[in-house]
């Protein structure tokens, strides 16, 4: 044990934690005033890093001017524009919608960065790179690190002063407590909300400029640094700025000290040998913090503006499926192998999307980690289906992914709403960084995975395999719809409407949620197996966290309460990938999701619901295409909805705002 070495790690941890603290406090400021958890927060920081690099390194601007332009100009402007263009349209929308809109922005920003700064593997110099390091407690600190710590302290003190000592800051806290009362007192909640987004995004930009030099400039990695900010913000329960700072520094220490501890404890280092656990440490920290939150109160009914769709009958779902399969068989004859392959992958992801129709659409639980389960399914397919394409592999995919889902759900279901979404995201990050990249899982080189062979009939050809994927999606949809119409489906709907009332009828809310989570994970596992077979080999990249996020997006856009969204989402992904190849824009799909974000803020229930309305109007009920839902009742329907007050209320009677 070397004291100096530990001290060095502690100081570096504090410096890193300071940077996270700046990012996390921006996240808290926007969340408390608008109720929207900005998943794109890290993406704003990432864009700021790149812009700062472009200005200083590429264009030779002076550092001070670049800092002003990026931190005081670019960041706040982006925040204000997002608030005005998107956030305002989301009042009263469901939790799933509010989550996916900023996820769409995040994905869009990654697409944008990879296009503008394509292939640039740059490193960003810190502030005063030539200055001598500062010595503190026998530890050498770069001037940049000192500046980061000073900035964090300034932000902490400045925010405190701003919120408690200025008129605008007081108005901001008033809006957090009660927008209605605040507006009666002459405060304009819209203006305050916009200001808070500008401040929040400005802090993200500052964090980006400060963190950029500590790491390699890489769009995805920088964006997902935001998980560190989530973790810190959750320590402050998304409202307390001092606790957020504590959390950030704690995380900085955790990330830096755990590897040291592991290295010096024999059995730990041998147990973790071969596992890339270090990149997953922020996710592990987030998971631990989320598990310390006690949130066991039962949720009551709450109205939102989502609507109830008619559930198709068994006959309708079977006829509709037959139609879809027949259509696929015909169309497949005219498509190239490359196009077919992209559609196979699209509909494979569609199956993963279907798992969210059950979990989120019917059950009201939001998961951002479905690709984690899909990867488990692919692993099972690899082991049980292998090169021969044994259809039992699909069963194995379900059978392995479902218990993994249950295993994740046992701790995860202690929290709900946004916290559950974050927990599942942490899970996906862990699977992505640590499990799937382990050599023993998918292997280091490409593994041979044969496509399904059913009763001796191989689906090896691209046409046959596309039809197979669509058929599996249809069969699972018929099953999900049957579940929805069953007693279990009614219990699930009741739970979504009011957990509290369900419990007083003798329904065990946790058991129902657990079963739903497991079923959903199982379906995602089948989707993962199909995706892997489309590529004739499973790879970690297919099931990365960044692939998980758009899944929720595509089903929410299509209307998460309808199985049709799994089809439209799968088709959309396939088409985007085809078009992206034609026009030669890398990551076109990522860019297009930005459009979806704006669209969703105009139509928060998803475009599919509006489309279904139109179809119902034109086609009489008796002749309706089977999968399309009926005319929705015009009443609001309570769905799982979390407001800032709801997430952060400790279950007692205390209310209050940003602290």
């Amino acid at each position, binding site marked *: 044990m070397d004291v100096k070495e530990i001290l060095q790690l502690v100081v570096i941890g504090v410096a890193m934690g300071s940077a996270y603290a700046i990012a996390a406090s921006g996240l808290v400021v926007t969340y408390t005033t608008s109720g929207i958890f900005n998943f794109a927060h890290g993406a704003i920081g990432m864009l700021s890093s790149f812009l700062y690099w472009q200005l200083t390194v590429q264009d030779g601007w002076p550092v001070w001017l670049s800092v002003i332009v990026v931190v005081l100009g670019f960041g706040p402007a982006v925040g204000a524009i997002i608030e005005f263009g998107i956030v305002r349209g989301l009042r009263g929308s469901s939790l799933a919608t509010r989550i996916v809109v900023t996820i769409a922005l995040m994905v869009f920003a990654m697409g944008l960065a990879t296009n503008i700064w394509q292939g640039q593997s740059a490193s960003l110099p810190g502030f005063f790179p030539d200055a001598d390091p500062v010595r503190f407690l026998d530890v050498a600190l770069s001037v940049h690190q000192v500046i980061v710590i000073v900035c964090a302290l300034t932000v902490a003190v400045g925010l405190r002063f701003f919120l408690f000592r200025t008129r605008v800051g007081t108005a901001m806290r008033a809006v957090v407590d009660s927008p209605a009362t605040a507006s009666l007192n002459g405060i304009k909640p819209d203006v305050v909300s916009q200001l808070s987004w500008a401040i929040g995004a400005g802090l993200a930009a500052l964090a980006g400029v400060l963190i950029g030099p500590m790491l390699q400039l890489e769009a995805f990695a920088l964006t997902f640094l935001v998980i560190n900010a989530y973790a810190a913000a959750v320590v402050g329960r998304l409202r307390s700025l001092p606790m957020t700072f504590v959390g950030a520094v704690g995380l900085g220490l955790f990330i830096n000290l755990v590897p040291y501890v592991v290295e010096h404890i024999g059995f730990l280092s041998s147990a973790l040998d071969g596992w890339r656990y270090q990149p997953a440490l922020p996710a592990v920290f987030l998971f631990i913090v989320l598990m310390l939150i006690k949130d066991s109160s039962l949720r009551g009914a709450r109205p939102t503006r989502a609507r109830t769709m008619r559930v198709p009958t068994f006959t309708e779902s079977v006829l509709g499926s037959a139609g879809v399969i027949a259509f696929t068989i015909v169309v497949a004859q005219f498509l190239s192998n490359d196009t077919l392959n992209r559609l196979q992958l699209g509909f494979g992801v569609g199956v993963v999307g279907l798992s969210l129709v059950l979990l989120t659409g019917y059950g009201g639980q939001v998961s951002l980690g479905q690709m984690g389960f899909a990867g488990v399914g692919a692993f099972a397919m690899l082991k049980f289906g292998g090169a021969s394409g044994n259809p039992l592999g699909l069963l194995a995919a379900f059978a392995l992914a479902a218990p993994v889902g249950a295993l994740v759900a046992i701790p995860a279901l202690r929290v709900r709403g946004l916290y559950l979404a974050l927990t599942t995201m942490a899970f996906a990050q862990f699977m992505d960084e640590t499990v799937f990249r382990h050599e023993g899982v998918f292997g280091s080189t490409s593994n041979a995975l044969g496509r399904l062979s059913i009763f001796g009939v191989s689906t090896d050809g691209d046409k046959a395999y596309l039809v197979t994927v669509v058929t599996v999606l249809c069969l699972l949809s018929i099953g999900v719809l049957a579940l929805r119409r069953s007693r279990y489906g009614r219990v699930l709907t009741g739970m979504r409407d009011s957990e509290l009332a369900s419990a007083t009828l*003798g329904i065990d809310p946790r058991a129902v949620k657990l079963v739903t989570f497991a079923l959903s994970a199982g379906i995602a596992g089948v989707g993962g197996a199909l995706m892997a077979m489309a590529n004739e080999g499973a790879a970690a990249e297919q099931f990365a966290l960044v692939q998980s996020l758009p899944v929720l997006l595509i089903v929410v856009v299509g209307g998460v309460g309808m199985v049709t969204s799994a089809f439209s989402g799968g088709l959309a992904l396939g088409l985007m990938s085809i078009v992206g190849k034609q026009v030669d824009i890398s990551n076109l799909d990522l860019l297009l999701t930005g459009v979806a974000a704006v669209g969703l803020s105009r139509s928060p229930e998803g475009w599919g619901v509006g489309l279904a309305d139109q179809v119902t109007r034109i086609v009489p009920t008796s002749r309706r295409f089977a999968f399309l839902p009926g005319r929705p009742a015009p009443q609001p329907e309570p769905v799982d909805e979390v407001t800032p007050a709801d997430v952060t209320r400790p279950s007692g009677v205390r209310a209050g705002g940003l602290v």
Partner: protein
Amino acid sequence: MALLEVRRVDVRFGGLHVLHDVTFACEAGEITGLIGPNGAGKTTTFNVISGVQTPTEGTVILNGEDVSSLKPHLRARRGIARTFQRLEVFGSMTARDNVRVAAEVAQRRRKHGAAKGSVRDVVNLIIERVGLSEVADEQSDALPTGHLRLVELGRALATGPSLLLLDEPSSGLNERESAAFGELLTELADEGLGILLVEHDVPMVMAICERVHVLDQGMVIASGTPAEVQANNAVQEAYLGTKGAAL
């Protein structure tokens, strides 16, 4: 043995003392009234009995079994059903499906139990009995408050309870509906159901309850027959501030 015993229950929210040493009992086949001014702790008492609120101290005993440590769904399975003052109807379902969910859950639990009708018969019977036949197939979000209270009553009855907790069931009902509702409760009690009734309609409470407990500022300040309670000075002071006409 009383059907329900609430023993020495205390509830504190931080510095706020919501219930203070609350003790009372309910008998099977009787309607017990729980009245008191706003904020007296009536709904909190219901939450403690149904397991939604964990008391700081005290016990809840159902049919001689201490259910204090049980979660809400386990108490429901032992025969406690309730309605909510702030409605908790399954808004996206029809009134009939609200009742059906409860009946299905209850039937499944009693799989090996005594004779039972089909779920459909049970649901139809209850719908008719609480007076929802005409609106049973409408989505419940579209129904007026008075009907929603009946949906909650029907749903609670469908669980086959031995104790029914009703939280302000008659608010939103008109006078005629209120009277019919009172009759229905009396019939249910005559069939052996124990009912604990929180109600603002004091004349109705006095008319149909066998016993009445009065809560004020978290304390039981009086218990007795309606006549005894009406004559109690402390009740009139607490409830009305002055000697009023309502009692």
